[in-house]
């Protein structure tokens, strides 16, 4: 019952979401610019690698890696935790609940439709990086590229679900923004956003391999930059799938529980 409804509603949902996203396109440009840390980190690690390769990574590898994090970060960007927690707190969620499509689908459509604008803003920046160090462009091979696409999709889903879960917590607690900030500060290290995991101390890499952070960024980036052996790729994609499954359960459960509370406010 639900799936056919979603399919029927999709064209309208897309039209409305596209209008919402493009209404704030200047704002979206600013949001893209908030994710420029890979450029800063590239400058840093480029200097570090100037004295010789670090853990096997030379300057071109660093440019390739951080070009990858820049791209994947944008491809998986969303802001559902802030939208959701704000709308729960202010009651703006109510009109969304009246629509026949689940609010999470509404958010998801919006975030996907923001992608073309994001890519439009990002491409000159990426082009600049490529012009600065052309040797970073290496075709990973058709198989690795296909896996990269799958992996980016899973990473997007993971980011969306994690943010949604933290946002849903606004049904119970007030501090969801602080909660997400703390998550993000750990994510920044263990996702491979600040530095490639190849240069981590052994214990950090060992821990980081199994934490959920890597699955949201480093896995697709390493698939694209060719830094992942086939066995590790299989393990990492499996982990991505496992985290997605776990989070789907968690988000579903939390949403039902939370919504029951929301109704109790009389909002």
């Amino acid at each position, binding site marked *: 019952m639900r799936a056919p409804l979603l399919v029927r509603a999709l064209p309208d949902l897309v039209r409305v979401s596209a209008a919402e996203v493009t209404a704030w396109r*200047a704002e979206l440009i600013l949001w893209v610019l908030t994710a420029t840390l890979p450029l800063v980190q590239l400058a840093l690690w480029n200097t570090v690698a100037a004295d010789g390769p670090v853990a096997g990574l030379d300057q071109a590898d660093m440019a390739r890696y951080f070009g990858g994090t820049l791209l994947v970060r944008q491809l998986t960007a969303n802001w559902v935790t802030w939208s959701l927690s704000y709308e729960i707190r202010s009651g703006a969620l109510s009109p969304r609940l009246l629509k026949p499509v689940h609010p999470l689908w509404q958010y998801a459509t919006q975030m996907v439709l923001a992608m073309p604008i994001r890519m439009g803003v990002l491409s000159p920046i990426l082009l600049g990086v490529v012009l600065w160090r052309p040797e970073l462009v290496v075709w990973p091979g058709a198989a690795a590229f296909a896996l990269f696409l799958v992996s980016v999709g899973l990473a997007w889903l993971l980011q969306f679900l994690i943010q949604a879960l933290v946002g849903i917590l606004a049904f119970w607690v007030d501090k969801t923004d602080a909660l997400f900030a703390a998550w993000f500060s750990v994510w*920044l290290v263990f996702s491979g956003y*600040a530095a490639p995991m190849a240069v981590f101390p052994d214990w*950090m890499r060992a821990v980081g391999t199994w934490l959920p952070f890597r699955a949201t960024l480093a896995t697709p980036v390493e698939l694209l930059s060719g830094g992942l052996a086939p066995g590790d790729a299989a393990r990492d994609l499996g982990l991505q799938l496992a985290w997605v499954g776990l989070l789907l359960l968690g988000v579903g459960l939390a949403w039902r529980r939370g919504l029951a509370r929301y109704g109790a406010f009389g909002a």
Partner: protein
Amino acid sequence: MLDLARTLRVVAALLRVGLSAALQYRADFLLDAVLGVLRASAAVGPTVVLFSVREQVAGWTAPDVALVLGFYLILQALMSGLVEPNLGEVVEAIRSGNLDLLLLKPVDAQLLVSFRRVQPAAIWDLLGGLAVLAWAGWQRPSPGWGAILVAVGLLPPGLAAMYSLWLLAICTSFFFVRVDNLRYVLGAVVDAGRNPLVVYPPWMRVILTAVIPVGLITTFPASALRGEGGLSLWVLAMGIAVGFVIASRAAWLRSLAAYTSSGS
């Protein structure tokens, strides 16, 4: 010209009110503490990674970079504790027209918008920064008193420049509607301040000193403690800070003149 004593009294009163408003939510204190400790420990991560593969970077050892990181964390604490809560509020007040209510009060509106809200949770980031500085001080040979004096003297101009940058960001929201995310853009650039400026290419150093002056308050004091630059660093920092303060005040007054309230 503002009367200095009165200004300080107003700021103190605003901070007191802001703090008691924030402290109403005492139950959040424990959660804040846990999250704060988590944030502060994670902030050290990238530097730990860096020095697990290298003894030194561009002539800076781990304790040297820890000095920079410590000042950076303290700056972050001050920004998230005192500055950012206010920025969000002003942007919303301009959009909704509530700024009218502040403009009617017999106190300079810049003070009112700058010090109305306090975020006590930032104390944990402050403690994290002090801990990192303490570790660096313990690892390094003691700098001379002159160096310490210059380093401490660099903090006021550095803070003044960063505050002015933030005020300039606020001014843009008089002309564009949704720019509260400008603070995240600034925050993203400020992140570059966690490393000494020498690791960046020259054009980035210039930007991080004179345009987004985060280097003034992170790298400059650390350089002073390493015995580099001395008084000339302070003179340069003062020059940049004075420029920022004058520019931001002028921009604020011009923006206010252009403000069309909700009623007009």
